[in-house]
């Protein structure tokens, strides 16, 4: 039991938020090792003691998967880290991942009452601390599965939505098989999010946990191509299918010159570097354009754009510049990523928009013709609409340009499943609460329903779908 736990409220409020140690920006911007180093045990105890155990914990309300944050923190304060981990796992099957990549400032920490006057309790850092503690202890508190129901569920996609659904469904006693199109499991967690933000060993660890719980995995299956939804249900006899394929197709800017060599989608650039390990170019075969001593620009303001620009820096870019058409305030990226990027020497060119890519006679990119923007009236998203400043054109030199402005729906499943309803943007239509689609036995969730969002929202969708699938399998009614 920590002494600080017995501190009176007023004293607890005086404790300042503990800063998590980070790798030195000058060093880390040249390697792919994890930036955040995790809280030491003593610091975790101090940080946990900042929780004032309020009566209506906003942290729980604002968590997309409803983690019982207050109870978890109480267990940390009591020094029972393994119990805290087990409590966490009741609602979140991938805590080591969410502790690293959640936008906590908009979720649990955004709802923290301590944050109203000072800095909120560092819930994300604490989550990471106990998940890592549990993993390193080797004493995993994996929950027991219910007796076998003899029902089976196919999950399409091994990203955050698919993995969290798999974790919940296996516990209910169903047979669960996850199909993945790529050769490695984890979806965006392995192809998209870089090693320096989420080490792949962490993802592998979580996947291994699911395997230990009995989840089956099959890689190299593109549902919609290798097998259709109907075949999964009629020929392979799955009682339900959960479609969690993610957003899919990259959006380009649609400006002239996007075919010059050196122009990438963020998806391609990150996949080459993360999934295919192109950053270890001496050992791995998949190439990526050599960024060393070259100028790189990344277009976009979200986490993907931030990951791409910081990756290019680590690959040795002479200059790594983020180009965003709105201003700082509208950037959807996590606050921590923006801070880390600035520390690593990323240049931010806000209110700037590329209108054309230019290249040399051999087809290699040499720069981006850009215009300056100013903010006008709010648009449909509620953010002020960027408007071009007349006559503000200039050329930004670039050998590599990475487009990270979002994705659209991948059509492979929809196009081979005629009775699966889609909306006008070709996303799958699913009920917000039951995650049921128009097709009996088929559920969908995550980015393929909502469009590009966050890891935790996809996990939330996966959990909701799992509950709804369980209900369907138990009651048998659609």
């Amino acid at each position: 039991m920590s002494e600080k736990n017995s501190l009176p409220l007023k004293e607890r409020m005086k404790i300042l938020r503990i800063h998590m140690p980070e790798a030195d920006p000058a060093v880390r911007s040249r390697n792919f090792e994890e930036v955040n180093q995790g809280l030491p045990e003593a610091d975790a105890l101090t940080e946990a003691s900042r929780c004032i155990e309020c009566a209506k914990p906003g942290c729980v309300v604002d968590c997309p998967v409803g983690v019982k944050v207050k109870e978890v923190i109480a267990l940390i304060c009591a020094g029972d880290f393994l119990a805290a981990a087990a409590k966490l796992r009741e609602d979140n099957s991938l805590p080591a991942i969410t502790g690293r990549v959640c936008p906590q400032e908009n979720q649990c920490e955004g709802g923290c009452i301590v944050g109203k006057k000072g800095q909120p309790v560092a819930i994300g850092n604490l989550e990471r601390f106990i998940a890592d503690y549990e993993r390193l202890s080797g004493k995993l508190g994996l929950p027991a599965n219910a007796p076998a129901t003899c029902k089976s569920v196919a999950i399409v996609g091994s990203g955050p939505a698919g993995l969290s659904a798999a974790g919940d469904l296996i516990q209910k006693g169903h047979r669960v098989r996850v199909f993945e199109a790529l050769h490695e499991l984890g979806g965006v967690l392995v192809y998209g999010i870089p090693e320096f933000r989420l080490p792949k060993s962490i993802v592998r660890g979580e996947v291994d946990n699911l395997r230990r719980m009995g989840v089956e995995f099959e890689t190299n299956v593109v549902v919609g191509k290798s097998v259709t939804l109907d075949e999964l249900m009629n020929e392979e006899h799955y009682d339900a299918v959960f479609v969690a394929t993610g957003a899919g197709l990259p959006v380009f800017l649609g400006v002239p010159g996007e075919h010059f060599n050196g122009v990438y989608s963020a998806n391609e650039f990150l996949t080459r570097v993360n999934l295919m390990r192109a950053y270890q170019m001496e050992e791995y075969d998949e190439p990526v354009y050599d960024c060393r001593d070259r100028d790189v620009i990344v277009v976009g303001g979200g986490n993907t754009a931030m990951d791409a620009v910081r990756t290019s820096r680590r690959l040795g870019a002479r200059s790594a510049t983020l180009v965003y058409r709105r201003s700082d305030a509208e950037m959807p990226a996590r606050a921590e990523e923006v801070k880390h990027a600035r520390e690593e020497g990323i240049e931010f060119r806000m209110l700037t928009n590329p209108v054309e890519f230019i290249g040399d006679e051999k087809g290699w990119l040499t720069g981006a013709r850009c215009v300056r923007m100013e903010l006008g009236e709010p648009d449909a998203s509620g953010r002020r609409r960027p408007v071009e400043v007349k006559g503000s054109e200039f050329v930004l030199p670039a050998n590599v340009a990475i487009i990270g402005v979002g994705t659209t729906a991948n059509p492979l499943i929809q196009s081979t499943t005629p009775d699966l309803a889609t909306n006008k943007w070709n996303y799958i239509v699913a009920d917000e609460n039951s995650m049921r689609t128009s097709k009996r036995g088929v559920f969908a969730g995550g980015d393929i329903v909502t469009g590009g969002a966050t890891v935790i929202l996809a996990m939330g969708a996966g959990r909701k779908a799992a509950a709804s699938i369980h209900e369907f399998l138990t009651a048998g009614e659609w």
Partner: protein
Amino acid sequence: MYKILDARSVGLNIKQFVIEAPRIARKHQPGQFIILRIHDKGERIPLTIKSSDPQAGTVTIVVQAIGKTTSLLNCLETGDSILDIVGPLGKPSEIENYGTAVILAGSVGTAMALPTAYALKKAGNHVVFIEGSRNKEMVVFEDEVRSSSSETYVMTDDGSYGEQGLVTKKLDELIAAGRKIDFVLAVGPVPMMRAVARITAPLGIKTMVSLNSIMVDGTGMCGGCRVLMGDKSQFACVDGPEFDASKVNFEVLMQRNAMYREKECASLKQFQERWEEQVAELREELAAKESHHV
């Protein structure tokens, strides 16, 4: 792991593999392809499916050793395994009874064109197959080419076999002779496909080309394989690989395919210097995985 049930050399640096891949075998249609990765540190490369046997659960692929990965792949033998294969990818060929269909295929492109040729013939077309190669050693699958078509021409650049000349020379001859051509499919090196498009576009003959862009995932996720069709961008992996030849910007395709040439050459050179070692390492890695699986 995907077992190689049969590996045989079918031409100079060209090898055919029959591989156990039941899911792909069951779904393969003419015109589609696979992506494979040989080992943990390998790249993902797209390759032609020559045929499939849904009952036996096998697919047949044909590989020409050009770079490091294809060279290493072609060192594998019957009984070896391939780490990852995914497919079938891409849209199938559009099969219709066009009337007279001319297929032009260059060396290893012949393998990709064969299933489409058979399907076109079955659909009632008079299929004219013009197979081209650099020389006699690279003429592949001549028997199958003949059985898939109603009329067959074999061309070699150096005249060491069949008729001397490029496949487009034969196409020109057929057109000059007043033959009515309703459909053309060209599969092969980009300059060949471009040359075909230049002949048929002015004549308004519907012509499809099968594009070999650089790919990573093959599911539309990365956009690396994008090709310029007029002023519109399309993805070869999901919108193709076959496209209307009259709209394809072949210059952009060639330029994009050259993107990693430097690294490709360096990798190949490094492989050639110590290929025996690398093949041994690969076998070791695969054996370790195999035993892990069991």
